[in-house]
C-alpha cells in the first residue's frame, strides 16, 4: 500500500571538523497520507530541521530515502515548497516582485497575464495586496512570513514544508498567523509537514504529531493522533475535553526526553512515603502500562476496549512504545508503572544482568504463551531447520536480529542450537528494536530474525522472509510475555483496602480469558486493528496469523501445532517462578549473569503469586495454579526444578564449569 509521502529507513550522519561522526538521525520510518498535516516536535537540536531538509531534498540522507508519490526525492524542487524561519523573502525586491519572481521561475508555462493574476490572488489571500509595493524591510516579521506562505501556496506544490515558521515572532502575531495558516491549509487541502517546538501550535494545526527523541541518534519516539474535528477554531480546540490530556502527553514526552538526556537517576523513595503520596493525591494519576505492538499485548488492548480496568475502579493508560529500550528508560524514570515484558526481562532487570542497573520488578501474571518464530530472508534460500543447521555446521556466517532486550525467543533459539550441536556463539546476534527487525531484514542488514508471530506473518506476507522454525518445536507452551510492574509502585499500592495492583491483575486476567475463546477471534481482530492499537493495515497479516496452523503449511511438517498464542487456558496466566528459574539457568549458562546466591528469595520477590491468586479470588476463578515439578521442554528434555544449577552446568556449551558449588 503506497502512501503519498514516505520516509524509508532514513538515517543521517555528519562528520565533524575533527573527523568524528555524529549520528544525528537514526532509522526514521514515517508514512504520510495526502492532505494530511503533520507536525514534527522535539527539543532544539534533536534533528527536526535536518529531517525537514531531507524531506525537501536540500540534504541527502546517509541511508534510506524519501519517496513522494512513488518517486524518490533526490533534489529540492518547487513541488516541495519550503517556508523558512528567516530570510524567506529577498529584501531587495518588493513584496509583489518576490511572489512574481517565484511564479516566473516555476510556472513558466503560464502567460505573463496569468502569472500577474495569480500574484495578485496570492497576496489577496493573505490580505497583503495593499502593501504589495513595499519592500520586505518595511513590513513586520509576521507580514513577511505571510507573504512567504502565500508565495509557497501560489506555486501549488504537492508538499508544503514549514521550518519553525513562527519561531521568530512574538506571541500575539504567532497566534494570528497560526489561525491564518490553518485556514489556508484547510482550504487548499495541501499535504503539510511543519517543524515546531510549540506544543500548542502542533495541536491546533495538525492531524498527527510526530515526537522525536533527543539526539544523537534521534528517532521517532511517538506519534499522537489529534482527533479534533475540522474546520477548527482555536477557542473550540482549547475547550475540547481532550485538549489538555493530549497537551500533557506531548509535554510529558518532552520532559522525559529532557530527563533521559540528563540521566539523573531518580532517588529511591521509601515505600511509606509513596503510599502516603498515593493515598493523598487529589486526582490520582492514571496507571501507565507500556507495550510493544504484537499479538501478546492483546489482553491489555482488550481490557482497555472493554473497560475492564474501569470495572476494577482503575484509570489505566496504555502507551505504545517503539522499542524495549524505550520501555526500559520509561520504567526507570517512572513514567511507566509497568509493562508487557518478555518473560526473561523481569529477572534480567531485577538482577541487573547484562550491564544494566538493577530495577526490581514484580510479575503479576503471564500474558501469553507461545508465539515466536525464526524467520530467514528469502535471499538465503534456506527453507527448513535442517537447512539452517547445515548452513551453520559448515561454518557459514549468519546474522540474526533479536529484540533489543533479552527475549524468550533468543533464549529458546540459543537453547535449540546448542541442543543440535551448534555453538550459538557462531551466530552474530544483532539486538534491535522489534519494530525494526523486518526493515533490517529487507534492508539486508540481517539474514533473519527471531521474533513474534506478528512480524513473522508480515515477513511472509511481504515475501521477504520465510519461517523455518517455531518455538513449539523447542518448548511448547513456554511463557512468552508477562505483565510486570515496578516494585516501588506495587509497594505503594498494595496496602490499601482495594489494592490497585490486584485490580490491575484481575482486569487483565479477565481480558485474557476473553482472548482465548475462538468465538471471540473476530472481535479480537477488530480491537487489534483499531488505529489506537496496530492500525487497519495489519488486518490481513493478523487474520493469517491467528489461524492456527498457517505457519505449519510452509514447513511440510506433520506435527500439528498446539494452540499458538495462548493467553489463558490451561492455567496459562499463572506467574510461575519455575519458569523464572529456567531463565536464571539460561542467564548463568550463557554468562549473562552470575548464578544468584539467594535464588529462592529472588524468585519469590519477582513473581507475585499472591497478587495473582488474590486477583483470581476477586474474579471467582479457581484452579489456576499448576502443580507439576518437572517441565518438559522438547521431546525427552526435562527441566528439573530441584537441581537447577547442575542442569545449567550440564547443558551443552554452558559457560559454567562443573566444579562450581
Amino acid at each position, binding site marked *: 500500500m503506497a502512501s503519498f509521502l514516505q520516509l524509508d529507513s532514513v538515517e543521517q550522519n555528519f562528520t565533524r571538523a575533527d573527523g568524528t561522526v555524529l549520528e544525528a538521525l537514526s532509522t526514521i520510518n514515517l508514512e504520510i497520507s495526502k492532505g494530511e498535516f503533520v507536525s514534527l516536535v522535539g*527539543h*532544539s*537540536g534533536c534533528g527536526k530541521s535536518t529531517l525537514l531538509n531531507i524531506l525537501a531534498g536540500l540534504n541527502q540522507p546517509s541511508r534510506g530515502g524519501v519517496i513522494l508519490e512513488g518517486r524518490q526525492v533526490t533534489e529540492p524542487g518547487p513541488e516541495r515548497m519550503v517556508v523558512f524561519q528567516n530570510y524567506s523573502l529577498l529584501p531587495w525586491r518588493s513584496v509583489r516582485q518576490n511572489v512574481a519572481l517565484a511564479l516566473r521561475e516555476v510556472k513558466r508555462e503560464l502567460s505573463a497575464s496569468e502569472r500577474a493574476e495569480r500574484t495578485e490572488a496570492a497576496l489577496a489571500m493573505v490580505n497583503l495586496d495593499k502593501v504589495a509595493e513595499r519592500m520586505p524591510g518595511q513590513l513586520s516579521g509576521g507580514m513577511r512570513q505571510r507573504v512567504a506562505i502565500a508565495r509557497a501556496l501560489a506555486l501549488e506544490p504537492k508538499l508544503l514544508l514549514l521550518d519553525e515558521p513562527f519561531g521568530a515572532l*512574538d*506571541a*500575539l502575531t504567532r*497566534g*494570528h498567523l497560526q489561525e491564518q495558516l490553518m485556514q489556508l491549509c484547510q482550504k487548499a487541502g495541501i499535504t503539510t509537514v511543519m517543524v515546531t*517546538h510549540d506544543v500548542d501550535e502542533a495541536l491546533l494545526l495538525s492531524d498527527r504529531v510526530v515526537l522525536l527523541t533527543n539526539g544523537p541518534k534521534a528517532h521517532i519516539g511517538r506519534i499522537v493522533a489529534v482527533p479534533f474535528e475540522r474546520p477548527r477554531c*482555536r*477557542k473550540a480546540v*482549547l*475547550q475540547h475535553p481532550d*485538549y*489538555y490530556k493530549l*497537551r*500533557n502527553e506531548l*509535554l*510529558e514526552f*518532552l*520532559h522525559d526526553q*529532557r530527563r533521559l*538526556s540528563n540521566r539523573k537517576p531518580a532517588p529511591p523513595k521509601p515505600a511509606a512515603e509513596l503510599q502516603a503520596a498515593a493515598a493523598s*493525591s*487529589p*486526582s490520582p*494519576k492514571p496507571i501507565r502500562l507500556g507495550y510493544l505492538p504484537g499479538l501478546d499485548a492483546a489482553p491489555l488492548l482488550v481490557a482497555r476496549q472493554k473497560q475492564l480496568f474501569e470495572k476494577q475502579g482503575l484509570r489505566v493508560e496504555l502507551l505504545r512504545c517503539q522499542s524495549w529500550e524505550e520501555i526500559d528508560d520509561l520504567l526507570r524514570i517512572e513514567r511507566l508503572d509497568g509493562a508487557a515484558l518478555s518473560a526473561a526481562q523481569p529477572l534480567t532487570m531485577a538482577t541487573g544482568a547484562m550491564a544494566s542497573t538493577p530495577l526490581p520488578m514484580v510479575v503479576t501474571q503471564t500474558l501469553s504463551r507461545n508465539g515466536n518464530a525464526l524467520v530467514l530472508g528469502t535471499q538465503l534460500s534456506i527453507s527448513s531447520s535442517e537447512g539452517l543447521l547445515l548452513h551453520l555446521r559448515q561454518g557459514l556466517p549468519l546474522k540474526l536480529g533479536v529484540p533489543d532486550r533479552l527475549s524468550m525467543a533468543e533464549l529458546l533459539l540459543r537453547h535449540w542450537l546448542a541442543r543440535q550441536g551448534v555453538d550459538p556463539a557462531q551466530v552474530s546476534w544483532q539486538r534491535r528494536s522489534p519494530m525494526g527487525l523486518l526493515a533490517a531484514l529487507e534492508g539486508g542488514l540481517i539474514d533473519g530474525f527471531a521474533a513474534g508471530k506478528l512480524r513473522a506473518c508480515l515477513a511472509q506476507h511481504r515475501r521477504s522472509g520465510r519461517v523455518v522454525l517455531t518455538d513449539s518445536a523447542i518448548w511448547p507452551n513456554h511463557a512468552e510475555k508477562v505483565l510486570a510492574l515496578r516494585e516501588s509502585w506495587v509497594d505503594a499500592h498494595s496496602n490499601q483496602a482495594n489494592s490497585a495492583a490486584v485490580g490491575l491483575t484481575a482486569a487483565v486476567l479477565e481480558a485474557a480469558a476473553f482472548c482465548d475463546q475462538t468465538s471471540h477471534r473476530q472481535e479480537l481482530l477488530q480491537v487489534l486493528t483499531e488505529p489506537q492499537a496496530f492500525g487497519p493495515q495489519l488486518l490481513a497479516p493478523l487474520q493469517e496469523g491467528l489461524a492456527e496452523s498457517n505457519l505449519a503449511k510452509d514447513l511440510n511438517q506433520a506435527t500439528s501445532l498446539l494452540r499458538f498464542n495462548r493467553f489463558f487456558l490451561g492455567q496459562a496466566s499463572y506467574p510461575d517462578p519455575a519458569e523464572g528459574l529456567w531463565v536464571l539457568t539460561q542467564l548463568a549458562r550463557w554468562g549473562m549473569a552470575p548464578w544468584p546466591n539467594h535464588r529462592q528469595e529472588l524468585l519469590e520477590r519477582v513473581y507475585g503469586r499472591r497478587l495473582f491468586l488474590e486477583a483470581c479470588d476477586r474474579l471467582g476463578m479457581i484452579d489456576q495454579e499448576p502443580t507439576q515439578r518437572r517441565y518438559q521442554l522438547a521431546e525427552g528434555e526435562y527441566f528439573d526444578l530441584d537441581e537447577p544449577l547442575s542442569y545449567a552446568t550440564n547443558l551443552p556449551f554452558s559457560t559454567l564449569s562443573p566444579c562450581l558449588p
Partner: protein
Amino acid sequence: MTVSERRGRRVEFNAIGKSFPSDSGCVEVLQGVNLSVAAGEFVCVIGHSGCGKSTLLNTLSGFETPSTGSVLVEGEPVEGPGPDRMVVFQNYALLPWKTALENVVLGLRSIRRGEPRELLVSEAKAMLETVGLGDALDCHPGELSGGMRQRVAIARAMAMKPPVLILDEPFGALDPITKEELQEELLTLWRQQRCTVLMITHDIDEALFLSDRVVMLTNGPSASIGEILSIPFDRPRDRDSLLHDQRYGELRNRALEFLYERQGG
C-alpha cells in the same frame, strides 16, 4: 517564618503613569497602574511585547522615574537604583573579563564593604554551587553556555540577598530544557530567601508554574492592569502534578483568552 526572618519587603505601585516625549508628541506608556505586592510574594507580570511591562518594573528598580504616582518599598519611595532591588536582565550583563566567581564577588563587595574577602568568596562559592556551577567557578562568561551565564547572573543577584528581586524576561533566550531547569532552581533559591519577586515573562506556563499571582497588563499605549490571576497550587510545586490539575487548564485558558481575545487586534 517570623517577620524579622522574612527578607522580602512590601512593594506598592500607586497610580503609576509614565510618558515619554517623542517626535510626534508625548507617548503615554503606562496609566493608572495600582498594584500591591506583599512581602515575600512571587508575582509575574505578563503581557504582549511593547505593552510597558519593562517600563513598569523600571520604575521599581529605579532606572525610570514615573511621570505620575509613586513606587513605595516598605512605605519608602524609590529614589534611583540600589542593591536592595536587584535586577536580572535577559542578556546576563556579566563582565566578560572576570570569571564567574569574580562576577559574584564583585556584587557582594559593593554592598558589604570592609568585610574580609575570604568570607565573601566563600559565600559566592556556596551560591554558585547551589545553582550547579561548582565546577565552573573559574570560567569566564565566554566559556559558558547561555543557561550557565544566566545561572551566574541569578547567583550574583541572590548572593546579595536582596529584599526585592526583579527579573526581566530572564529565560527568554534559552531553550525549553534549560528554561525548565532554571525555573526550578530559581524557585529553590527563592524558597531559601523568600524575597519579594517581580518577574516579567511572556510565557504563560512559566508564570503559572512560578508565581503566587499573575498580573496581566493590557496592550499599550496607556497600559494598565487588566486582570490579576491568583494561583492556588501548593508549594513546593511539581510540574507533573500541575499538568494533571484541572485548575491548571482553566487558568491557562483564562490567561490565553485575556491575551488573545480581549487584547489581540
